[in-house]
């Protein structure tokens, strides 16, 4: 599926929630259910800077697509990471570089992506784009 399509699905999913609590419960569930990263990849060199909870990000190229995996000690951060990875992972570097984040705005979670918020997600997105850039030049 293309990035835009996945984003639209996510926006639709979130439109069903009636209040922030349902939304957060969903994020927390995402954070809990998804096993995002291989334990062997939970190493310091995969750590993202500037966050209150540890946040790891990994990327590998498979069949011209980047598979991202991530994990966080904080479950809400992990849930947010899951929402980001669902869109970006398993896409071509070029598509990833072109992708925007408007859907995060639309589902009302933009606050988590403020550059001044200490959760590391903005740095994580930057890092994902760097990986995409690196792989696109190969």
């Amino acid at each position, binding site marked *: 599926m293309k990035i835009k399509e996945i984003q639209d699905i996510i926006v639709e999913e979130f439109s069903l929630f009636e209040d922030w609590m349902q939304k957060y419960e969903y994020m*927390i569930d995402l954070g809990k259910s998804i096993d995002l990263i291989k334990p062997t990849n939970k190493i310091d060199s995969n750590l993202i800077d500037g966050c209150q909870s540890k946040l790891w990000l990994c990327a590998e190229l498979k069949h011209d697509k980047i598979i991202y995996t991530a994990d966080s*000690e904080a*479950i809400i951060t992990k849930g947010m990471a899951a929402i980001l990875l669902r869109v970006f992972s398993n896409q071509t570097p070029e598509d990833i570089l072109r992708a925007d984040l408007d859907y995060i705005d639309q589902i009302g979670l933009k606050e988590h992506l403020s550059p001044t918020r200490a959760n590391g997600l903005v740095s994580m997105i930057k890092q994902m784009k760097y990986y995409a850039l690196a792989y696109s030049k190969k």
Partner: protein
Amino acid sequence: MALDINKIREDFPILKRKVNGNDFVYFDNAATSQKPNKVIDSIVDYYKNYNSNIHRGVHTVSQEATDAYEGARTKIQKHFNVKNSHEIIFTSGTTHSINIVANGFKDLLNKNDEIIISGLEHHSNIVPWQMMAEKNSAKIKVIPINKQGELNMEVYDSILNKNTKLVFVNHVSNALGTINPIKEIIEKAHKVKAAVLIDGAQAASHFKADFQELDVDFYTTSAHKLCGPTGVGILFGKEKWLNKMPPYQGGGEMISDVTFDKTTYADLPHKFEAGTPNVSGAIAFGVALDYLNSLGFDNINLYESSLLKYATKKLKTISGLKIYGDNENKTSVISFNVEGIHAYDIGTLLDKFGIAVRTGQHCAQPIMDHFEIPGTVRVSLAFYNTKKEIDKLYNSLKQAISMLS
């Protein structure tokens, strides 16, 4: 006289706002305090009516501004029972104040000298000494903390010796709320002729320290922690120390004579107040002290103690909740974790309920290392908080935990 909290809350406009659709509950007072109308009004009054650069001005408005600025210094002097007004230096905050002293002692110490820091310190009180020790090779020794988050005074006794030149301890720990036995620390340090700097950033909003009675050598605090504005604080120093220390910054005000060959430094306090100071900030700081004194520190203390007791008792009933630094000598801070849940998650959900707490290391990584935790949730109280707000915290916390478990 008991405080009329509802009336007091009227003084703080921000307490009326909503956060995420809920009434705002501010439990991040250790990070910074909220400001009463009187303080805000004094800033407006300054800029609307008598803003001017101070000192050396012969015109009326400059005189008015200078008198108000120096008047604020006198208020602070009286509040802390300081002998001479020139022993109060206006700074941009505690961090700046501590750096003045660390810089001052750089040239006064050498490699045989030792300084003692407590294990309960804020980064502001660690890094300057590390930077200083890199230059003069003085040795830094640490008073460790025990399980209750208190200083181990036996170790203090054992590391204190005739080479000790300085002891640095905060009055109240920002991460745990522990009140340190500063009177005892000062007395013992003076026996070996060491000077003592007390970092009062967390203490000054809760109690009124008497510097002459404490016989403290240096004391620091920031206005923004005690209902005053950002960007201003003080360094108190005994005259003999301030005279001994070299100035920290070069600039206007701090010199009496400048040529390209040689410069003579001005008298205290100007020697340490280079450049245009935060005039409106200093004046508003004085007004903040007036405001707090009008409530009375004894009353504030009494009320805050009862709040702390109430909150501690209530939070302890939550299963899996662990308070760090749960000791008898503490004030207004509850630092905790809930088993299996990350502090960041709790902070994020509490915010959704309109409750502001701080999460993380609280600029005190060594304390976190001591407890082997990445951080805590810190609830810090002020006199404008209420039991009702604590009830709301309790309920929201329970709900957050159930969402996160």
